[in-house]
Protein backbone atom coordinates (compact mmCIF):
# COMPACT_ATOMS: atom_id res chain seq x y z
CA UNK A 1 0.00 0.00 0.00
CA UNK A 2 2.86 2.32 0.84
CA UNK A 3 4.48 1.51 -2.45
CA UNK A 4 1.24 2.23 -4.21
CA UNK A 5 0.93 5.66 -2.64
CA UNK A 6 4.53 6.48 -3.39
CA UNK A 7 4.17 5.57 -7.04
CA UNK A 8 0.97 7.62 -7.18
CA UNK A 9 2.99 10.68 -6.25
CA UNK A 10 4.25 10.69 -9.80
CA UNK A 11 0.79 11.02 -11.34
CA UNK A 12 0.45 14.82 -11.15
CA UNK A 13 3.82 15.20 -12.81
CA UNK A 14 2.94 12.74 -15.58
CA UNK A 15 -0.34 14.53 -16.22
CA UNK A 16 1.19 17.99 -15.99
CA UNK A 17 3.95 17.04 -18.40
CA UNK A 18 1.51 15.50 -20.87
CA UNK A 19 -0.88 18.44 -20.77
CA UNK A 20 1.89 21.02 -21.15
CA UNK A 21 3.46 19.19 -24.09
CA UNK A 22 0.07 18.76 -25.71
CA UNK A 23 -0.73 22.45 -25.29
CA UNK A 24 2.54 23.40 -26.98
CA UNK A 25 1.78 20.93 -29.76
CA UNK A 26 -1.78 22.15 -30.25
CA UNK A 27 -0.56 25.69 -30.83
CA UNK A 28 2.75 24.97 -32.55
CA UNK A 29 1.12 22.44 -34.85
CA UNK A 30 -0.94 25.18 -36.52
CA UNK A 31 1.90 27.06 -38.27
CA UNK A 32 3.51 23.75 -39.21
CA UNK A 33 0.28 22.45 -40.75
CA UNK A 34 -0.28 25.69 -42.62
CA UNK A 35 3.35 25.68 -43.74
CA UNK A 36 2.86 22.22 -45.17
CA UNK A 37 0.00 23.49 -47.30
CA UNK A 38 1.65 26.78 -48.16
CA UNK A 39 1.92 27.91 -51.77
CA UNK A 40 5.55 28.89 -51.21
CA UNK A 41 7.72 25.83 -51.97
CA UNK A 42 10.52 26.85 -49.59
CA UNK A 43 8.08 27.15 -46.72
CA UNK A 44 6.53 23.82 -47.58
CA UNK A 45 9.94 22.18 -47.68
CA UNK A 46 10.87 23.70 -44.33
CA UNK A 47 7.66 22.52 -42.68
CA UNK A 48 7.95 18.99 -44.10
CA UNK A 49 11.59 18.72 -43.03
CA UNK A 50 10.81 19.89 -39.52
CA UNK A 51 7.92 17.49 -39.16
CA UNK A 52 9.91 14.55 -40.50
CA UNK A 53 12.96 15.19 -38.35
CA UNK A 54 10.93 15.78 -35.20
CA UNK A 55 9.05 12.53 -35.68
CA UNK A 56 12.02 10.60 -37.01
CA UNK A 57 14.17 10.85 -33.88
CA UNK A 58 13.09 8.97 -30.73
CA UNK A 59 11.64 11.16 -27.92
CA UNK A 60 14.29 10.06 -25.44
CA UNK A 61 17.00 11.22 -27.85
CA UNK A 62 15.34 14.64 -28.13
CA UNK A 63 15.24 14.93 -24.34
CA UNK A 64 18.93 14.07 -24.17
CA UNK A 65 19.78 16.58 -26.88
CA UNK A 66 17.92 19.30 -25.01
CA UNK A 67 18.96 18.40 -21.49
CA UNK A 68 22.52 17.19 -21.91
CA UNK A 69 23.38 18.54 -25.35
CA UNK A 70 22.12 22.10 -25.19
CA UNK A 71 23.00 22.06 -21.50
CA UNK A 72 26.67 22.07 -22.31
CA UNK A 73 26.31 24.92 -24.79
CA UNK A 74 23.74 27.13 -23.08
CA UNK A 75 22.75 27.56 -19.44
CA UNK A 76 21.25 24.17 -18.59
CA UNK A 77 17.47 23.86 -18.41
CA UNK A 78 16.07 21.93 -15.46
CA UNK A 79 14.81 18.39 -16.20
CA UNK A 80 11.12 19.27 -16.21
CA UNK A 81 11.54 22.24 -18.55
CA UNK A 82 13.70 20.13 -20.84
CA UNK A 83 11.07 17.40 -20.91
CA UNK A 84 8.24 19.85 -21.59
CA UNK A 85 10.18 21.52 -24.38
CA UNK A 86 11.26 18.19 -25.86
CA UNK A 87 7.88 16.48 -25.79
CA UNK A 88 6.26 19.79 -26.77
CA UNK A 89 8.18 20.22 -30.01
CA UNK A 90 7.61 16.57 -30.93
CA UNK A 91 3.89 17.14 -30.31
CA UNK A 92 3.99 20.10 -32.70
CA UNK A 93 4.97 17.73 -35.50
CA UNK A 94 2.36 15.11 -34.66
CA UNK A 95 -0.38 17.71 -34.17
CA UNK A 96 0.56 19.29 -37.51
CA UNK A 97 -0.08 15.97 -39.20
CA UNK A 98 -3.38 15.61 -37.36
CA UNK A 99 -4.47 19.09 -38.47
CA UNK A 100 -3.42 18.27 -42.00
CA UNK A 101 -5.73 15.25 -41.92
CA UNK A 102 -8.49 17.53 -40.60
CA UNK A 103 -7.85 20.12 -43.30
CA UNK A 104 -8.25 17.58 -46.06
CA UNK A 105 -11.39 16.21 -44.40
CA UNK A 106 -13.09 19.59 -44.65
CA UNK A 107 -14.70 19.69 -48.05
CA UNK A 108 -13.10 21.68 -50.83
CA UNK A 109 -16.58 23.05 -51.52
CA UNK A 110 -16.42 25.03 -48.28
CA UNK A 111 -13.43 27.01 -49.51
CA UNK A 112 -15.11 27.71 -52.79
CA UNK A 113 -18.43 28.61 -51.21
CA UNK A 114 -16.79 31.03 -48.78
CA UNK A 115 -14.60 32.60 -51.42
CA UNK A 116 -17.63 33.00 -53.64
CA UNK A 117 -19.18 34.99 -50.81
CA UNK A 118 -16.26 37.38 -51.14
CA UNK A 119 -14.48 36.36 -47.96
CA UNK A 120 -10.71 36.62 -48.00
CA UNK A 121 -8.49 33.56 -47.60
CA UNK A 122 -7.51 34.75 -44.15
CA UNK A 123 -11.03 35.04 -42.79
CA UNK A 124 -12.21 31.84 -44.47
CA UNK A 125 -9.44 30.06 -42.60
CA UNK A 126 -10.18 31.74 -39.29
CA UNK A 127 -13.95 31.59 -39.25
CA UNK A 128 -15.02 28.75 -41.53
CA UNK A 129 -12.32 26.16 -41.99
CA UNK A 130 -10.38 26.51 -38.73
CA UNK A 131 -13.19 25.63 -36.34
CA UNK A 132 -14.17 22.64 -38.44
CA UNK A 133 -10.60 21.41 -38.61
CA UNK A 134 -10.33 21.54 -34.83
CA UNK A 135 -13.51 19.61 -34.47
CA UNK A 136 -12.61 16.77 -36.83
CA UNK A 137 -9.13 16.65 -35.29
CA UNK A 138 -10.36 15.97 -31.76
CA UNK A 139 -10.47 12.15 -31.94
CA UNK A 140 -7.00 11.81 -33.46
CA UNK A 141 -5.62 14.36 -31.01
CA UNK A 142 -7.17 12.46 -28.12
CA UNK A 143 -5.58 9.20 -29.15
CA UNK A 144 -2.29 11.04 -29.59
CA UNK A 145 -2.69 12.39 -26.05
CA UNK A 146 -3.12 8.84 -24.75
CA UNK A 147 0.12 7.88 -26.46
CA UNK A 148 1.77 10.94 -24.95
CA UNK A 149 0.81 9.90 -21.42
CA UNK A 150 2.86 6.76 -21.99
CA UNK A 151 5.66 8.50 -23.89
CA UNK A 152 6.08 11.02 -21.09
CA UNK A 153 7.60 8.18 -19.04
CA UNK A 154 10.89 8.73 -20.88
CA UNK A 155 11.28 11.96 -18.87
CA UNK A 156 12.31 9.75 -15.98
CA UNK A 157 15.64 9.21 -17.73
CA UNK A 158 16.62 12.85 -17.21
CA UNK A 159 15.32 12.86 -13.65
CA UNK A 160 11.76 14.19 -13.90
CA UNK A 161 9.88 12.87 -10.88
CA UNK A 162 7.00 11.21 -12.69
CA UNK A 163 5.46 7.76 -12.23
CA UNK A 164 8.35 5.62 -13.49
CA UNK A 165 10.82 7.67 -11.48
CA UNK A 166 9.06 6.77 -8.25
CA UNK A 167 8.58 3.17 -9.33
CA UNK A 168 12.29 2.87 -10.00
CA UNK A 169 13.13 4.47 -6.71
CA UNK A 170 10.87 2.10 -4.80
CA UNK A 171 12.14 -0.91 -6.71
CA UNK A 172 15.69 -0.10 -5.71
CA UNK A 173 14.91 0.68 -2.09
CA UNK A 174 12.47 -2.04 -1.11
CA UNK A 175 12.97 -5.78 -1.15
CA UNK A 176 10.16 -6.04 -3.66
CA UNK A 177 11.81 -5.15 -6.98
CA UNK A 178 8.90 -6.20 -9.17
CA UNK A 179 5.90 -4.75 -7.33
CA UNK A 180 6.51 -1.05 -7.95
CA UNK A 181 6.72 -1.60 -11.72
CA UNK A 182 3.47 -3.55 -11.75
CA UNK A 183 1.87 -0.73 -9.84
CA UNK A 184 3.25 1.77 -12.34
CA UNK A 185 1.86 -0.35 -15.19
CA UNK A 186 -1.50 -0.50 -13.45
CA UNK A 187 -1.57 3.27 -12.98
CA UNK A 188 -0.88 3.85 -16.67
CA UNK A 189 -3.52 1.33 -17.70
CA UNK A 190 -6.02 2.98 -15.39
CA UNK A 191 -5.18 6.37 -16.86
CA UNK A 192 -5.20 5.35 -20.51
CA UNK A 193 -8.01 2.82 -20.88
CA UNK A 194 -10.87 5.13 -19.86
CA UNK A 195 -9.35 7.76 -22.15
CA UNK A 196 -9.32 5.26 -24.97
CA UNK A 197 -12.96 4.33 -24.41
CA UNK A 198 -13.99 7.95 -24.22
CA UNK A 199 -12.13 8.64 -27.46
CA UNK A 200 -13.86 5.78 -29.22
CA UNK A 201 -17.26 7.04 -28.11
CA UNK A 202 -16.40 10.61 -29.06
CA UNK A 203 -15.08 9.43 -32.40
CA UNK A 204 -18.34 7.63 -33.16
CA UNK A 205 -20.38 10.71 -32.26
CA UNK A 206 -18.28 13.15 -34.24
CA UNK A 207 -18.29 10.85 -37.20
CA UNK A 208 -22.08 10.84 -37.18
CA UNK A 209 -22.18 14.60 -37.06
CA UNK A 210 -19.67 15.16 -39.84
CA UNK A 211 -21.19 12.43 -41.99
CA UNK A 212 -23.06 14.08 -44.82
Amino acid at each position, binding site marked *: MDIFLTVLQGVPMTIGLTVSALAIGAVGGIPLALGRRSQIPALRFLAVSLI*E*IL*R*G*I*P*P*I*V*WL*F*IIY*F*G*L*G*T*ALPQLDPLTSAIVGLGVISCAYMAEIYRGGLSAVAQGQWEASEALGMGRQSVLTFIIGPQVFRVSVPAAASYAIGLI*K*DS*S*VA*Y*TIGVTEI*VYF*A*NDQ*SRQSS*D*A*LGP*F*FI*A*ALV*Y*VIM*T*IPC*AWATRALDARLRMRVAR
Partner: protein
Amino acid sequence: MNIFTDWPSYLPELLAGLGVSVQVALLSLAIGIPGGLLLAIGAGSKNKLVRVLIIGVVEIGRGTPALVVLQIFYFGLPASGLTLTSMAASVVALAATTAAYTSEILRGGLQAVPQGETEAAGALGMNRKDTLRFIVIPQGFRVAIPSLIGFAILIFQATSLAYTVALPELLSQAYSIGSTTFNYLSVLLLAGLMYAAITIPASWLTGRAEKRLAQHL
Protein backbone atom coordinates in the same frame (compact mmCIF):
# COMPACT_ATOMS: atom_id res chain seq x y z
CA MET B 1 31.77 24.54 -36.35
CA ASN B 2 33.33 22.18 -33.82
CA ILE B 3 29.99 20.40 -33.55
CA PHE B 4 30.69 18.51 -36.76
CA THR B 5 34.47 18.15 -36.70
CA ASP B 6 34.47 15.20 -34.33
CA TRP B 7 31.76 13.23 -36.09
CA PRO B 8 34.13 10.95 -38.02
CA SER B 9 35.75 9.88 -34.77
CA TYR B 10 32.37 9.04 -33.20
CA LEU B 11 31.14 7.10 -36.13
CA PRO B 12 32.62 3.62 -35.47
CA GLU B 13 31.16 3.32 -31.98
CA LEU B 14 27.84 4.79 -33.01
CA LEU B 15 27.57 2.44 -35.96
CA ALA B 16 28.19 -0.48 -33.64
CA GLY B 17 25.41 0.85 -31.44
CA LEU B 18 23.13 1.26 -34.42
CA GLY B 19 23.80 -2.38 -35.27
CA VAL B 20 22.61 -3.40 -31.82
CA SER B 21 19.51 -1.19 -32.14
CA VAL B 22 18.60 -2.72 -35.49
CA GLN B 23 19.18 -6.20 -34.15
CA VAL B 24 16.92 -5.63 -31.15
CA ALA B 25 14.22 -4.14 -33.37
CA LEU B 26 14.32 -7.00 -35.87
CA LEU B 27 14.30 -9.69 -33.18
CA SER B 28 11.42 -8.01 -31.35
CA LEU B 29 9.40 -7.81 -34.54
CA ALA B 30 10.26 -11.38 -35.53
CA ILE B 31 8.97 -12.65 -32.20
CA GLY B 32 6.27 -10.09 -31.56
CA ILE B 33 4.40 -10.13 -34.88
CA PRO B 34 3.66 -13.89 -34.83
CA GLY B 35 2.58 -13.36 -31.22
CA GLY B 36 0.32 -10.54 -32.35
CA LEU B 37 -1.14 -12.80 -35.02
CA LEU B 38 -1.96 -15.47 -32.45
CA LEU B 39 -3.62 -12.87 -30.24
CA ALA B 40 -5.56 -11.51 -33.21
CA ILE B 41 -6.83 -14.96 -34.10
CA GLY B 42 -7.65 -15.69 -30.47
CA ALA B 43 -9.58 -12.43 -30.23
CA GLY B 44 -11.92 -13.84 -32.88
CA SER B 45 -12.43 -17.07 -30.94
CA LYS B 46 -15.92 -18.45 -30.43
CA ASN B 47 -15.11 -19.01 -26.75
CA LYS B 48 -16.11 -15.89 -24.87
CA LEU B 49 -13.69 -16.49 -22.00
CA VAL B 50 -10.74 -16.75 -24.38
CA ARG B 51 -11.88 -13.60 -26.14
CA VAL B 52 -12.25 -11.55 -22.97
CA LEU B 53 -8.92 -12.80 -21.64
CA ILE B 54 -7.06 -11.91 -24.82
CA ILE B 55 -8.65 -8.50 -25.14
CA GLY B 56 -7.69 -7.86 -21.51
CA VAL B 57 -4.08 -8.85 -22.11
CA VAL B 58 -3.90 -6.71 -25.24
CA GLU B 59 -5.39 -3.65 -23.55
CA ILE B 60 -2.96 -3.96 -20.65
CA GLY B 61 -0.08 -4.47 -23.04
CA ARG B 62 -1.05 -1.38 -25.00
CA GLY B 63 -1.80 0.69 -21.94
CA THR B 64 1.60 0.13 -20.34
CA PRO B 65 4.55 2.19 -21.61
CA ALA B 66 7.24 0.07 -23.27
CA LEU B 67 9.67 1.63 -20.82
CA VAL B 68 7.79 0.12 -17.88
CA VAL B 69 7.58 -3.28 -19.57
CA LEU B 70 11.33 -3.11 -20.07
CA GLN B 71 11.95 -2.26 -16.42
CA ILE B 72 9.72 -5.14 -15.35
CA PHE B 73 11.76 -7.61 -17.36
CA TYR B 74 15.17 -6.26 -16.47
CA PHE B 75 14.93 -4.94 -12.91
CA GLY B 76 11.80 -6.70 -11.70
CA LEU B 77 12.16 -10.29 -12.83
CA PRO B 78 15.46 -11.08 -11.03
CA ALA B 79 13.47 -10.73 -7.79
CA SER B 80 11.48 -13.78 -8.84
CA GLY B 81 14.61 -15.69 -9.69
CA LEU B 82 14.84 -15.06 -13.43
CA THR B 83 17.70 -12.85 -14.51
CA LEU B 84 17.82 -11.73 -18.13
CA THR B 85 20.71 -10.08 -19.91
CA SER B 86 20.02 -6.54 -21.04
CA MET B 87 19.77 -7.84 -24.61
CA ALA B 88 17.28 -10.57 -23.70
CA ALA B 89 15.22 -8.24 -21.52
CA SER B 90 15.07 -5.63 -24.28
CA VAL B 91 14.02 -8.13 -26.92
CA VAL B 92 11.41 -9.79 -24.71
CA ALA B 93 9.96 -6.48 -23.55
CA LEU B 94 9.74 -4.95 -27.00
CA ALA B 95 8.41 -8.23 -28.44
CA ALA B 96 5.63 -8.21 -25.84
CA THR B 97 4.75 -4.63 -26.72
CA THR B 98 4.88 -5.54 -30.41
CA ALA B 99 2.53 -8.46 -29.88
CA ALA B 100 -0.02 -6.28 -28.08
CA TYR B 101 0.01 -3.52 -30.69
CA THR B 102 0.24 -5.66 -33.81
CA SER B 103 -2.61 -7.85 -32.60
CA GLU B 104 -4.90 -4.85 -32.98
CA ILE B 105 -3.42 -3.98 -36.37
CA LEU B 106 -3.73 -7.56 -37.60
CA ARG B 107 -7.21 -7.96 -36.17
CA GLY B 108 -8.28 -5.04 -38.31
CA GLY B 109 -6.62 -6.67 -41.32
CA LEU B 110 -8.27 -10.04 -40.73
CA GLN B 111 -11.65 -8.40 -40.32
CA ALA B 112 -11.19 -6.58 -43.62
CA VAL B 113 -11.35 -9.91 -45.46
CA PRO B 114 -14.93 -10.14 -46.77
CA GLN B 115 -17.13 -12.68 -45.06
CA GLY B 116 -18.23 -13.95 -48.46
CA GLU B 117 -14.76 -15.38 -48.99
CA THR B 118 -14.73 -17.35 -45.75
CA GLU B 119 -18.20 -18.60 -46.66
CA ALA B 120 -16.98 -19.62 -50.09
CA ALA B 121 -14.09 -21.49 -48.50
CA GLY B 122 -16.51 -23.19 -46.10
CA ALA B 123 -18.80 -24.15 -48.96
CA LEU B 124 -15.78 -25.66 -50.71
CA GLY B 125 -15.34 -27.86 -47.67
CA MET B 126 -12.21 -26.15 -46.34
CA ASN B 127 -11.94 -26.31 -42.56
CA ARG B 128 -11.47 -23.29 -40.32
CA LYS B 129 -7.74 -23.76 -40.00
CA ASP B 130 -7.14 -24.00 -43.75
CA THR B 131 -9.44 -21.06 -44.38
CA LEU B 132 -7.44 -18.95 -41.95
CA ARG B 133 -4.12 -20.13 -43.31
CA PHE B 134 -4.76 -19.85 -47.03
CA ILE B 135 -7.51 -17.26 -47.38
CA VAL B 136 -7.82 -14.95 -44.39
CA ILE B 137 -4.28 -14.54 -43.05
CA PRO B 138 -2.52 -13.83 -46.38
CA GLN B 139 -5.04 -11.13 -47.22
CA GLY B 140 -5.24 -9.78 -43.68
CA PHE B 141 -1.48 -9.40 -43.58
CA ARG B 142 -1.44 -7.61 -46.88
CA VAL B 143 -4.01 -5.10 -45.69
CA ALA B 144 -2.03 -4.62 -42.49
CA ILE B 145 1.38 -4.07 -44.12
CA PRO B 146 1.40 -0.24 -44.14
CA SER B 147 0.40 -0.11 -40.47
CA LEU B 148 2.91 -2.82 -39.63
CA ILE B 149 5.71 -0.83 -41.27
CA GLY B 150 4.57 2.23 -39.34
CA PHE B 151 4.68 0.24 -36.14
CA ALA B 152 8.09 -1.24 -36.97
CA ILE B 153 9.42 2.33 -37.20
CA LEU B 154 8.10 3.05 -33.72
CA ILE B 155 9.68 -0.12 -32.34
CA PHE B 156 13.00 0.82 -33.89
CA GLN B 157 12.72 4.17 -32.12
CA ALA B 158 11.73 2.40 -28.91
CA THR B 159 15.00 0.45 -28.89
CA SER B 160 16.49 3.70 -27.54
CA LEU B 161 14.67 2.92 -24.28
CA ALA B 162 17.12 0.05 -23.80
CA TYR B 163 19.59 2.75 -22.77
CA THR B 164 17.95 2.46 -19.34
CA VAL B 165 19.05 -1.17 -19.02
CA ALA B 166 22.60 -0.44 -20.17
CA LEU B 167 22.30 -2.19 -23.51
CA PRO B 168 25.06 -0.81 -25.75
CA GLU B 169 22.67 0.40 -28.43
CA LEU B 170 22.92 3.67 -30.33
CA LEU B 171 21.78 6.05 -27.59
CA SER B 172 23.91 4.35 -24.90
CA GLN B 173 26.95 4.60 -27.13
CA ALA B 174 26.28 8.26 -27.81
CA TYR B 175 25.74 9.02 -24.16
CA SER B 176 28.91 7.28 -23.10
CA ILE B 177 30.93 9.17 -25.73
CA GLY B 178 29.30 12.35 -24.44
CA SER B 179 30.26 11.60 -20.86
CA THR B 180 33.93 11.21 -21.77
CA THR B 181 34.23 14.05 -24.29
CA PHE B 182 31.65 16.38 -22.70
CA ASN B 183 30.62 17.09 -26.26
CA TYR B 184 27.06 15.85 -25.65
CA LEU B 185 25.40 18.07 -28.23
CA SER B 186 27.57 16.97 -31.10
CA VAL B 187 27.39 13.24 -30.48
CA LEU B 188 23.69 13.21 -29.59
CA LEU B 189 22.86 15.15 -32.74
CA LEU B 190 24.76 12.65 -34.83
CA ALA B 191 22.99 9.78 -33.09
CA GLY B 192 19.64 11.48 -33.70
CA LEU B 193 20.42 11.88 -37.38
CA MET B 194 21.34 8.21 -37.57
CA TYR B 195 17.93 7.28 -36.19
CA ALA B 196 16.28 9.65 -38.65
CA ALA B 197 18.33 8.23 -41.52
CA ILE B 198 16.48 4.97 -40.98
CA THR B 199 13.05 6.08 -39.85
CA ILE B 200 12.38 8.77 -42.46
CA PRO B 201 13.05 6.64 -45.55
CA ALA B 202 11.12 3.81 -43.87
CA SER B 203 8.08 6.03 -43.47
CA TRP B 204 8.23 6.91 -47.17
CA LEU B 205 8.08 3.17 -47.74
CA THR B 206 4.78 3.08 -45.86
CA GLY B 207 3.27 5.52 -48.31
CA ARG B 208 4.54 3.50 -51.25
CA ALA B 209 3.20 0.27 -49.76
CA GLU B 210 -0.21 1.89 -49.32
CA LYS B 211 -0.31 2.94 -52.95
CA ARG B 212 0.75 -0.47 -54.23
CA LEU B 213 -1.83 -2.25 -52.12
CA ALA B 214 -4.56 0.04 -53.34
CA GLN B 215 -3.63 -0.98 -56.88
CA HIS B 216 -3.64 -4.68 -56.25
CA LEU B 217 -6.87 -5.23 -54.36
